[in-house]
């Protein structure tokens, strides 16, 4: 494997027990032969419609659930043989809020720091620094139940960062956040990446992936359907998009060159709200998964 690879995922499969429509016991394949690698220091995005297997993939990569088949390596170390070493390297921001409801904000963070063997002074400083950074310093002694949704998301990120992980996983980090908070979280992710942290995130928001990720993978029904830099994925589909209305629906067609797009647009009914524009990641997403992205 190449030295620039931080994470290598090899033929990952996850099957869950499942009951079919007749109530018979069968299996459902959530992730189906996924292979990819994440480069040191890059921000890597995993995109896909609901139920595509993004969370399951992150859960396998972070050892919260065992793959049915396949292997995962961090810096050459396998999760199977050196789980404890790997766990020290990673920080995880889950899709759902999973704080300890019986502890305060500060105690939740301290528990995390203790689980990662940070000394008393070190954890006190680090927790104060991070809470300050995300503007949560004044809720340190509140119960976690009292926080607003946006505060909880920020706190989840803080908690994942306490032990200075080399690799940060974020499962839909900005879902249901207002635009300001979302921008701040984007800035935070960029700063982490700038500081050398490898970031692996999933998202439904195409513009989030475009804003942050050097490379994206698109997952559909557990299978990898695309993986590259966003611009290259757009190029491959056709750099120019022609959009128009037909039979009550918005239609799209992609062209490699501007003049081809112009020629095609000229052949359409001029009443149809024709638009020629650069192809974006959302076009790629829809073309590859056959479904609308976003929420």
């Amino acid at each position, binding site marked *: 494997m190449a030295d620039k690879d931080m994470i290598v995922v090899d033929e990952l499969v996850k099957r869950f027990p499942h009951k079919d429509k007749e109530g018979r016991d069968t299996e459902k394949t959530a992730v189906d032969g996924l292979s990819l690698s994440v480069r040191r220091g890059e921000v890597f995005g995993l995109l896909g419609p609901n139920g595509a297997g993004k969370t399951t993939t992150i859960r396998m990569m972070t050892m919260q659930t065992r793959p049915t088949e396949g292997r995962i390596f961090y810096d050459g170390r396998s999760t199977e043989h050196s789980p404890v070493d790997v766990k020290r390297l990673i920080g995880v921001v889950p899709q759902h809020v999973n704080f300890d409801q*019986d502890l305060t904000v500060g105690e939740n963070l301290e528990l995390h720091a203790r689980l990662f*063997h940070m000394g008393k002074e070190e954890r006190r400083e680090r927790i104060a620094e991070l809470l300050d950074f995300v503007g949560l310093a004044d809720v340190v002694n509140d119960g976690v139940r009292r926080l607003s949704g946006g505060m909880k998301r920020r706190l989840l990120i803080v908690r994942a960062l306490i032990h200075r992980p080399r690799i940060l996983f974020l499962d839909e980090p900005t879902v249901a956040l207002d635009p300001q908070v979302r921008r701040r979280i984007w800035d935070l992710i960029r700063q982490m990446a700038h500081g050398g942290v490898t970031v692996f995130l999933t998202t439904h928001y195409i513009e989030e992936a475009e804003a942050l990720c050097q490379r994206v993978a698109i997952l559909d029904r557990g299978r990898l359907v695309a993986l590259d830099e966003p611009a290259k994925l757009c190029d491959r589909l056709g750099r120019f998009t022609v959009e128009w209305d037909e039979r009550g629906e918005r239609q799209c067609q992609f062209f490699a060159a501007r003049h081809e797009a112009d020629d095609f647009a000229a052949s359409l009914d001029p009443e149809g709200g024709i638009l020629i524009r650069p192809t974006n990641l959302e076009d790629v997403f829809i073309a590859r998964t056959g479904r609308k992205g976003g929420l």
Partner: protein
Amino acid sequence: MLYDIWTVFWRDGIVLRRRLSRFILSRMVAPLLYLVAFGWGLGRSIQVDSGTYLDFLVPGILALNSMNISFNSITPVHAERIYHKSLEEYLLAPIRPDAFVIGKVLAAVLRGLISSTVIVVLAWLFGAHFTPGPLFLAVLTLNCVIFAEIGFLAAMKIDTYEAMSQVNTYILLPMSFLCGTFFSTAALPDAVAAFIDILPLTHTSYLLRGLGSGADVSMLSLLVLVVYAVGGFFWSRHAFRHLTD
């Protein structure tokens, strides 16, 4: 490993400290009722070989109470696993599964022993005679360990709240009454008694009663408890490991 056990225990310690007075107060209610109803009320008209019924009763109450408290002290792990998902923190942390199991069990044992202390004090106030020595304490602790482990297993294996409370209704409650706590198992039909004699609480009751009154006790009973405790640990650890399946 020791540090990780301490971390898990520390977390439960914080929660306990916050609720200590409420915990102690609420733990007094059931034993107080048992002592009044069976010690004062019914007990005056009951004769047992070894002396007053109150003296017979107190070790039984200690046994069943430490069982209930240590079991129910660990069952919040169920909500942490299923509803709050806060157990994920421990799955992501670079700690060994043993550390988590031991930390949780020790915290439940601590609660079991605190509530046992409350009962000992109450029982003395009611005029019961018994002398808790080191071995007495060891047996009580073992009993707490066993039922904390059973609670841990239930929390790992059971998926709904209803089923969790059914463990209380269908397993702990019958054991509370039948395992030599309120009366000797000799009073039961042979087949039933044979079954009851396999259960750990029965051995705890007999050991505590013997040790409290200074009589000889069965080393076999002690061995049975140790086997339950050790087996329970390995099974608990196995269950925790398999959360990631």
